[in-house]
């Protein structure tokens, strides 16, 4: 049994079968990559996991519990965090506050009326957030308003926001897209480090094969809404179908 | 039965007014995304175009009639309109009589101009500003416009009768086989209804059969990108504003025989027109028109004695009640588009 069990999930958008009978099992404390051509349904699948979309049929179990029918915040509180394909951050807030909010969410749950304490006094939370920002090399930008970050920085910020929650399952939708190569490498290291430090499971979507092959232990290839193969990285590299449908002449 | 029919007719009429106002408002609010609290003022200015034309047409030469005396016992000043002097008393009187429809000719250029000036001079700087700022500035403008009108025309309503050809009413009931007088409908209201129909159809056709509507909507959603595609969106926004102002103004002109114009009529309609637009759904022209008619008719029904005796006060709150119910059952009003002013 994996920590995440997706069984027979279907999702249609009008005439389009975005997901057709997807089965996926992600083992605890592994990094599982999902790759596939554009429009294959990768993001749609993640959307079904975090409650953004409700599949037409099928089941999604996390840690032995079904996530279907739960609200996004409940799912998050179960231990699933997600980095989106286009950065979703609190654009009007400072970088530091962006990271503090998930810290609060982790400590206090989905709602707590702490209207009389001051944020300043929450030293523990702030230290946590600053430590996280330091990890992603953004500490010196902590007082910037998030909207004025460059795009690559926004991605790093979003990742920090998810990591700081110490989720059991981290879903990453193209976390390094638009990141400079150096930062991509840093990110790979960071994810590896976190993985080593904590019992975390990761599910990663990437088009950057360097990232995929540096991190993934299992790879599922999705094409036109259905899993094509699920294999170890070594086997994927040489897989003819995958080469044709996805990799092309790319060097991996 | 006839009581219900007559309420439907009344509702259609009220509905056309709501629909016309909401239509203009949707162009600015639902399409340009500007919370225009001055829209009511535009409606009012339209109405005062009719008043002004009437005033112009009755500009008079003053002669002293020593036979008669005025209220202080001084010799009486007699006023004869210039038009009667120029065109003869009969034609002159007829022209004066037709002041309201003629005012359309005055209102179109005036309103388009007002729209242009307002957009270029003020609104232009507020597209990127928060809605709150738009509210403040347009509300300020509305107050200013309304006070200016009050300064020149006073606070009391000014009668602007329909041409005498449209006085009286049509006995629709007789056609349908009811007793005479059971369903009657004033001619001018019929005119208003058809007028509304024409304007609505015209605006729809313009936006449907040209790319104008699409471009403006796109420009609203993302003006930067539209600029990257070589489109001068500012010009189109200005035009759109002129169009919206003209629609609002014409709605006002033709409404004057039904509602004697006064300086606060715009504010009176303002809140209601926002409700109509939102119930129709942000950004949807058909939605605005539909909601206008729907609320008009419902309001008519709610003012029937039978209904009122069951639910006292229902006629005063029906619009709001319906608005609440619709907005709770349909998240984006009747036909709203996703993402328009939802945050």
């Amino acid at each position: 049994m994996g920590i995440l069990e997706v069984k027979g999930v279907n999702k249609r958008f009008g005439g389009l079968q975005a997901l057709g009978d997807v089965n996926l099992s992600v083992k605890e404390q592994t990094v599982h990559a999902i790759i596939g051509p554009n429009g294959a349904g990768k993001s749609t699948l993640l959307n079904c996991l975090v409650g953004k979309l409700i599949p037409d049929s099928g089941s999604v179990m996390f840690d032995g519990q079904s996530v279907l029918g739960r609200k996004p915040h409940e799912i998050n509180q179960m231990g699933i965090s997600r980095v989106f394909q286009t950065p979703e951050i609190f654009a009007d807030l400072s970088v530091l506050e962006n990271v503090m909010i998930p810290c609060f969410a982790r400590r206090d749950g989905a709602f707590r009326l702490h209207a009389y304490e001051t944020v300043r006094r929450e030293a523990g939370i702030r230290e946590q957030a600053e430590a996280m920002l330091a990890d992603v090399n953004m500490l010196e930008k902590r007082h910037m308003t998030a909207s004025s970050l460059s795009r690559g920085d926004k991605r790093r910020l979003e990742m920090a926001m998810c990591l700081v929650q110490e989720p059991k399952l981290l879903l990453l939708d193209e976390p390094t897209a638009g990141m400079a190569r150096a930062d991509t490498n840093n990110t790979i290291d960071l994810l590896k480090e976190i993985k080593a430090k904590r019992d975390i499971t990761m599910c990663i979507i990437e088009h950057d094969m360097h990232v995929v092959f540096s991190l993934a232990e299992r790879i599922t290839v999705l094409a036109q809404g259905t899993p094509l193969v699920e294999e170890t990285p070594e086997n994927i590299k040489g897989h003819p179908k995958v080469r044709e449908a996805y990799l092309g002449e790319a060097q991996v | 039965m006839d009581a219900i029919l007559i309420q439907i007719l009344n509702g259609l009429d009220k509905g056309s007014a709501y629909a016309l106002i909401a239509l203009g408002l949707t162009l600015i609010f639902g399409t340009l995304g500007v919370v225009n609290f001055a829209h009511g003022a535009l409606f009012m200015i339209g109405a005062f175009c009719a008043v002004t034309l009437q005033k112009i047409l009755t500009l008079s030469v003053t002669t002293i009639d020593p036979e008669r005396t005025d209220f202080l016992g001084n010799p009486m000043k007699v006023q004869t309109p210039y038009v009667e002097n120029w065109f003869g008393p009969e034609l002159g009187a007829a022209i004066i009589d037709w002041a309201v429809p003629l005012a359309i000719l005055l209102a179109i250029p005036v309103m388009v101009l007002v729209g242009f000036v307002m957009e270029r001079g003020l609104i232009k700087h507020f597209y990127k500003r928060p809605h709150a700022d738009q509210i403040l500035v347009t509300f300020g403008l509305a107050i200013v416009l309304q006070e200016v009108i009050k300064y020149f025309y006073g606070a009391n309503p000014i009668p602007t009768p329909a041409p005498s050809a449209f006085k009286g009413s049509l006995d629709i009931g007789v056609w349908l086989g009811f007793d005479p007088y059971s369903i009657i409908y004033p001619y001018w209201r019929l005119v208003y209804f058809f007028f509304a129909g024409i304007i609505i159809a015209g605006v729809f056709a313009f936006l449907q059969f040209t790319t104008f509507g699409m471009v403006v909507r796109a420009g609203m959603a993302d003006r930067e990108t539209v600029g990257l595609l070589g489109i001068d969106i500012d010009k189109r926004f200005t035009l759109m504003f002129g169009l919206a102002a003209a629609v609002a103004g014409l709605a006002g002109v033709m409404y004057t025989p039904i509602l004697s114009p006064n300086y606060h009529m715009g504010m009176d309609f303002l809140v209601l027109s926002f409700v109509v637009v939102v119930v129709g759904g942000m950004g949807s022209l058909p939605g605005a028109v539909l909601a206008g008619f729907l609320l008009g008719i419902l309001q008519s029904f709610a003012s029937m004695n039978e209904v009122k005796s069951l639910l006292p006060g229902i006629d005063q709150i029906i619009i709001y009640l319906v608005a609440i119910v619709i907005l709770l059952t349909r998240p984006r009003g009747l036909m709203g588009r996703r993402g328009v002013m939802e945050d």
Partner: protein
Amino acid sequence: FTNAPTGSAVTLGFNVPQTGAYADEGADELRAFELAVEHLNGGGDGGMLNTFSSKALDGTGIMGKKVEFVTGDTQTKSDAARASAQSMIQKDGAIMISGGSSSGVAVAVQGLCQEAGVIFMSGLTHSNDTTGKDRKANGFRHFFNAYMSAAALAPVLQNLYGTDRKAYHLTADYTWGWTQEESIAAATEAMGWQTTEKVRTPLGAGDFSSYIAPVLNSGADVLVLNHYGGDMVNSLTQAVQFGLRERQANGQDFQIVVPLYSELMARGAGSAIAGIPGSQNWDWKLEDEGTKAFVKSFGEKYGFPPSQAAHTCYVQTLLYADAVTRAGDFNPCAVVEALEGYEFDGLGNGPTLYRAEDHQCFKDVVVVKGAENPQDEFHLVEIVEVTPTEQVTYAPDHPMFAGGALGECNPGA
């Protein structure tokens, strides 16, 4: 007592609607106040000071103190009106407040003046409540009320339209509308009319068509419009548009009645008003000396005849000044005493009494109708009859006025 004048001047507070639907009434009231102050201070031609039966006033202000005034905006809202009155009392030291153009405002401000210990000489307020259940010792009303309108109108209506009539009421849905509806219905029923329906309409409805249309088939043959201001202009115009006046019902011509009239409303309604009967507190076309004097000084100063709003406010100011002078004291309680039961003449409408029990003024009521062919814009209203005082007088404990108590006069701090 509150705001006792110490210097060489005394300050009066004129609280009128300067914005909102009644702004024109307010403007006319203000003109009248200014004129009154001018006359009190010995300026102008003296106006009604010359015709007033009391000769206490001599054009040297009030008790030798020059009259000054402050103005405020009621916005025709109770809240704003009270704020404005408060500021006149607290900031400007006004010792008397007058003006206003709505019963709600009048009652609210009257209550305030009672608490603050100043005199309130109300302006336009027609609801029975002002001197009925909401009467106050410090407040006086020169305007007539709904009951008196009804009492004056009823006989005229009987003459015009007979005793076999079915009336349909459209009523502005608030306190003033209700009391007028109640009064008119009672008076007309007393002479044999039936009331088929009383329909309440929301304030400022704009389009009344859905209330008017059902009148057609209701079996009624008279429509009573208990509306005022813009509402009345619209409901009347629309009723005429719906052809009510050309209609026949129950074998008689259909008729419309507007119990409370004003010249400004008549102007707004245009030709629709022709022939419609109603009542007024006063009209500039009255023939008495006081009226003539007032119309002359007002007309010469402003170029048009005064409205009934102007008249009321002018008279209220003179009356107050006179009462102070007669009492020889600015103390509100002395003023109240001087005004209670006071009889006078020469301020229009003939001999007049300020009744002690409820501070309502009793005088002739003017029944009017819209002119068919007005000779100019000032003759939109014709006087039908001047109803003598006796006919509109009622007992202080009349049920329509019951439930209130004057309390004691309050001189304040």
